[in-house]
């Protein structure tokens, strides 16, 4: 059931907006519970077009496909496997139900979002559970001073993605990080606050930033930026 305001906005929009297409074009899947987990776990090695183009498979086939991904680097807990398979077999299955708003996530109940959980579900596939990244592929988050160059910078990255050459501690990267704007303002604030305090990162800050609030993220979300523009923003705010 769509939020009435969203419906009105979609109606108001007559033209398609062609934003800058990078390697890894933007593909959206039907809304449904645990769709966000698919976004977090299934974009490391390919984009979601394969998933979208495979719509119609039954649970048996999705299950086999999901299990075959282990050899290609996919790591899931049993719980995550079950949740992802549930989403795929339903919303990308032979008889998909109408899209369900993803707003009612268990972690939303009570209003408290666990940043560590968001990190594990959304960030760890690339940046690794220990935050070390993968040389020449994914920058580390552990010990990464970019986290503290500007209070809002990580929110720009999560909402818009980041692409272009960057150097982190003399290590070079030239990758494409997709947007994570499927996450809510509260989730984005929580995961940034988590990463800023994880491992030894708390010792990196020259000044202490106030923790991000959902409202901070909402303000960033209201601005338009491409992944390349975020790169320019990063360059402008480097220490």
């Amino acid at each position: 059931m769509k939020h009435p305001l969203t419906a009105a906005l979609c109606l108001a929009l007559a033209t398609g907006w062609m934003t800058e297409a990078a390697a890894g074009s933007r593909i959206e899947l039907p809304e449904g519970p645990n769709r966000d987990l698919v976004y977090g776990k299934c974009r490391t090695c390919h984009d979601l077009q394969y998933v979208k183009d495979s719509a119609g498979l039954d649970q048996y086939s999705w299950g086999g496909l999901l299990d075959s991904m282990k050899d290609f680097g996919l790591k899931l807990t049993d719980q995550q496997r079950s949740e992802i398979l549930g989403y795929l077999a339903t919303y990308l299955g032979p008889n998909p139900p109408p899209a369900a708003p993803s707003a009612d996530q268990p972690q939303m109940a009570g209003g408290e979002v666990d940043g560590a959980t968001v990190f594990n579900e959304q960030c760890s596939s690339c940046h690794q559970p220990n935050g070390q990244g993968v040389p020449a592929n994914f920058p580390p988050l552990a010990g990464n001073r970019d986290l503290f160059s500007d209070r809002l910078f990580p929110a720009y990255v999560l909402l818009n993605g980041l692409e272009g050459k960057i150097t982190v501690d003399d290590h070079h990267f030239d990758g494409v990080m997709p947007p994570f704007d499927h996450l809510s303002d509260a989730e984005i604030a929580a995961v940034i606050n988590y990463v800023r305090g994880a491992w030894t990162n708390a010792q990196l800050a020259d000044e202490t930033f106030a923790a991000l609030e959902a409202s901070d993220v909402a303000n960033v979300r209201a601005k338009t930026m491409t992944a390349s523009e975020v790169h320019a923003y990063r360059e402008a705010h480097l220490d």
Partner: protein
Amino acid sequence: MTYVLRQPNLSRREFGLLAGTAGLAMGFAPGLTRRALADEAANAAKIIAGKSPDMIVHNAKLGVMETPLALLRKYPHTPKEILFNRLHFPVDGERKWTATTAAPDFKDWTILVDGLVQRSRQVTLADLMTMDQVKRVSVMQCAGNGRSYYAAKSKAPGGQWKHGGMGNIEWEGVPLRPLLDDLKLAASSEAVWLTANGRDDPPEREATDFAKSYHIDDPALDNAILALKMNGEPIPASHGGPVRLIIPGYYGNMNVKYVTNLLLDAAQSPSAFQSKAYRFPNHPVEPGKFTVADYTTSNSRPTYGFQIMSVIFSPLAEDTVKHGTVEIAGVAWNDGTAPITSVEVSTDGGASWRDAMIEKPESPWAWHHWKLPAKLAKGTTDIMCRATDAFGRTQPLDGTARWQPKGYEWNGVDRVTVTVT
């Protein structure tokens, strides 16, 4: 047909302008800012520099794209701008150098030839350039080409290729077997498997690398070359430059790109790309009884040689066809081990067939051009073509007869429905 997703895309600027304070207010409520986000169209020219924007994209992050047939049919040798592309690891990060049709610049490129040998060798690009070169015109085809057609029985997941995952290429390079002989490796008699590995590596630490293995006695290796040129130019990075192992008649994945290692060993590579992916079941399998996770080295064999195949290039469904005498034309190919003896064409949905005229091909592994003039009346017409070779191999009337969950090696009789005016 260009793959463009036409849905309204709610950009953040428009969201802010139109939503006003009400929209921003949505952001203040934790968990409620999940907007209906829309797809962004993929542009092939932005994914791989030098590719035509008319390419149909199947996965931007992996540079996977196919050629519309209306474009493919124009050229006897498929230019790099429109040849289909498929990479196994993302085109960004440490593999970003592959995201271009320009030739890569690796002056010190070295191939290590090693394994169960008395003497391991290093062969450089400069070495290869001084050796005698031969040309091989051959079809390059993805094993998944035609996968979308299996959906008539049960959809096979992955890129939904039509017929454009193939092209006809003139490769030029150093013949493989004479090179291996000249290297005087003194390989062990147990070294019965040759494995080729390339420069590309997966982004995940615990993901399999890509490698392909062939039995050393495989006759297809008699025609193999370490190619340095594609259509007369140094091989594009996206197509495996500076050196690509080309085995004419073998599906694309077997033609290892950016070769850095040739290993002679007693066993096949444990790469999952050899032991689990790119394999075809030895016996018929059914949906609901066999998934992509069920492949083993015992129940399947690698997608080595091309299944015999033919495709109608003209007329295509999108062409304007005037009633009267129309030239039906297309191409056929197989693995090159037996000559193609006929291409039969039907213009009445399979009720009757006539032999098309086949041009002498440039090589056993190249496109065989065929054509047949036919009288077409006004209305809708189903045109079909079916190739057969001297070994008795032919195409099934219903290609889904060879259904398997990976959707490889499609070779069903081609069928085009045209409107004749």
